[in-house]
């Protein structure tokens, strides 16, 4: 690659001064040429790059610097570049018309810095000023609108959904979020901590805390013992298994299949209760800290957990098989809420939803770390049909995969029995934290959780960027429900199970 980009591995840092500054029009052409391949898909592998970061930073004197991070999944590296907008420049040519996956990134950049992407087809607010926005409308005798939310029945997060329906069929769904915007990124700059990181998105406590911890350890040069690394991976897989089991139950609940709801509900509790035994919190709050983990896991707990997980795995297998044999269940799941492989690649789906649509992307395997590699985990191969059925099955496969990884971690933990779990981080030196750009990507249960940090000349954090998988995937849900019955929307929604707070930040 030429000097327009600088490469960076996952969980590593580069000097901020090394990042090239391009002219925005050159950068745009570069991005388009690198990402264009991603529309064509072969065996689920994405040819070409996809965006994981596209964000601005205040560069003094009214200038704004735009950072772009593209992911080269095949080679497991990220490409970083940037452009500088002088104070007077308030617009540039939009990338979205060429590469649709950028649409939400450009909307975010516009909202935060007021620099307008010219010819952006859909410059809708992302987190602020929802009231001023005019929704798309359809006209016609039999067209009706259904507005749902932002306050919903049940205890769920706020988000507004506007359906354009013809009778029972949804023609178009518009999603409006931002009701939970808390300014997390600036909070992280002011006073970042593990506690804050794990509170960003309550259903991905481990993924967020892990991404934050790895990022800060990278920036500050803190080392973590092998045992602690393994316990972190263990927690990540337990979180994945628990949430996936819960989601299978929720899908069963939406189609009024009572038995599934009960069995999955009960087994999920067993998994999160094991987490409670390990860390004192059912969701693993307070487990991960800078420099390691706060709790050691002794052999006694491992034996108990093994027994529990065996039972959970057996129960989940049996229930999933019963459900997939039940024709009334399968008829609800199959061909509901389909996102084709081409479309998924085009709009840049990530994580579980992307895999269900047949894209072979999983940052655990694309950007593996040393400890994940020694576990010899295997990628899941599933013919991704992109419907609710596929998202149901991929969850099931990932639960089995997680339990197999968990088993391997339990075996490996014995080898490191004597190691401490927390080295403490007093040893860190401020020296190597100056003018740093670092990135950490963790595959949470929903998909890639991206954390990016920058420091200034004194080693102080100046920018903290977070990207939740939901950020990419909400639009996938909007496409999935097109031409489906409006009464199938909750089922589609549950099969994606996207985060509101992770997107609103």
């Amino acid at each position: 690659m030429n000097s327009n980009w600088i490469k960076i591995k996952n969980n590593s840092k580069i000097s901020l001064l090394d990042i090239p500054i391009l002219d925005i029009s050159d950068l745009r052409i570069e991005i388009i040429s690198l990402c264009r391949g991603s529309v064509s898909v072969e065996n689920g592998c994405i040819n070409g790059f996809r965006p994981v970061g596209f964000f601005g930073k205040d560069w003094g004197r009214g200038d704004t610097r735009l950072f772009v991070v593209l992911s080269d999944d095949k080679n497991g590296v990220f490409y970083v570049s940037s452009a500088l907008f002088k104070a007077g420049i308030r617009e540039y040519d939009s990338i979205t018309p060429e590469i649709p996956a950028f649409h939400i990134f450009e909307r975010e950049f516009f909202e935060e810095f007021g620099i307008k992407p010219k010819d952006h087809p859909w410059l809708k607010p992302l987190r602020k000023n929802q009231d001023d926005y005019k929704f798309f409308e359809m006209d016609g005798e039999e067209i009706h609108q259904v507005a749902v939310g932002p306050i919903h029945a049940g205890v769920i997060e706020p988000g507004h959904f506007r359906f354009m329906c013809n009778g029972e069929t949804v023609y178009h769904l518009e999603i409006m979020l931002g009701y939970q915007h808390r300014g997390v990124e600036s909070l992280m700059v002011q006073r970042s901590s593990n506690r804050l990181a794990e509170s960003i998105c309550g259903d991905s406590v481990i993924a967020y805390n892990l991404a934050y911890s790895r990022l800060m350890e990278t920036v500050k040069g803190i080392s973590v013992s092998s045992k602690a690394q393994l316990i972190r991976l263990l927690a990540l897989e337990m979180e994945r298994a628990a949430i996936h089991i819960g989601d299978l139950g929720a899908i069963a609940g939406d189609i009024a299949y009572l038995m599934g709801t009960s069995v999955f509900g009960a087994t999920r509790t067993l998994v999160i209760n094991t987490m409670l035994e390990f860390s004192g919190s059912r969701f693993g709050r307070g487990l991960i800290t800078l420099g390691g983990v706060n709790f050691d896991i002794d052999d006694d707990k491992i034996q108990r957990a093994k027994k529990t997980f065996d039972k959970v795995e057996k129960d989940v297998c049996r229930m999933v098989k019963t459900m997939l044999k039940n024709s009334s269940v399968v008829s609800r799941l199959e061909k509901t809420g389909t996102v084709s492989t081409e479309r998924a690649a085009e709009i840049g789906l990530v994580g579980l939803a992307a895999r269900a649509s047949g894209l072979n992307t999983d940052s655990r395997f694309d950007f593996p770390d040393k400890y994940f590699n020694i576990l010899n985990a295997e990628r899941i191969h599933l013919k991704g049909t992109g419907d609710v059925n596929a998202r149901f099955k991929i969850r099931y496969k990932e639960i089995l995969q997680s339990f197999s990884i968990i088993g391997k971690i339990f075996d490996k933990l014995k080898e490191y029995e004597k190691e401490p779990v927390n080295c403490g981080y007093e040893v860190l030196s401020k020296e190597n934290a100056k003018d740093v750009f670092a990135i950490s990507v963790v595959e949470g249960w929903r998909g890639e959780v991206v954390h990016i940090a920058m420091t200034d000349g004194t080693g102080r954090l100046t920018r903290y960027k977070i990207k939740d998988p939901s950020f990419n995937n909400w639009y996938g849900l909007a496409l999935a429900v097109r031409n489906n019955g409006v009464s199938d929307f909750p089922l589609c929604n549950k099969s994606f199970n996207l985060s509101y707070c992770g997107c609103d930040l």
Partner: protein
Amino acid sequence: MAILLKLADLIIILILPFLISGVIKKTKAFWGGRKGASVFQPLYDFIKLIKKDFVISKTTSFVFKLTPLVSLAGLIIAALFVPLGTGCAMINVEAGIIIFAYILGLSKFFALIGAMDTGSSFEGMGASREACFTSIVEPAFFMTAASIMALTGNFTFDSLSKILENAGSYGVLIIIFAVLALLLMLLIEGCRVPVDDPATHLELTMIHEVMILDNSAFDLAVISYAASLKMLLISSLIAKLIIPESVGTLEYLGFYLLTIFLISIIIGTLESSIARLRMSHVFEFIFVMSSFALIILSLTVTRMFGG
């Protein structure tokens, strides 16, 4: 004695609807591996609701306030034409079936306009679904009723028990299909799985539940009681069909209660073992009822004119 029996029927109308809901919920809890609430819970809920204060949307008119009362009154009047625990209806007039059907129709009509009166897009959607399904159920119900009238020469529910003596061996088949058709009607009109999901909180998927989103307190209590009463009435017709006429009054009452209990358990079990149908497939499900009705009609025609 006759007065005592009427009193028994009255108690049945007042208490049994709650027990039906309670038993269904208990059965579902059992299959779900839970202990579940007491079978009297719907009754407790009813009492709780009538103690509450009203909240009435400002966008509604008098129609909305009228709806629960018309629904309730309609259902109670309809109940008088149905043979309950004693085996004969409280009011036994010519063409009782037609009065029954159209009084139910009146309650349904008010439920629909009451829902649309709120101006909520959800409730309009629910009303549209409910109206659509009802309009397919109605012909099936009348085909069955007309066949029975033709066979017995009498348009009341009390004559259901005469099918066997008037139609001979055809009667057995007619009774079997009529029971099946009524069971399906019970699931459709009672808003049970696989047609509707009474337990869901997702407005977009609801049919009956979404129509009463704006109702509260006494109105809500009355509406949920009326919905259970409707299930009781359809179950009572099934009981009348399958309990032989030769049994005595007290035995009839025993068999009747047993049948209602069994039907509740069957519904609870069904709800636990199958998923809900996709909305667009509900029509196919209702057409199954229509086809049963057609079978009954053709059996009747064969019996009367075929030799």
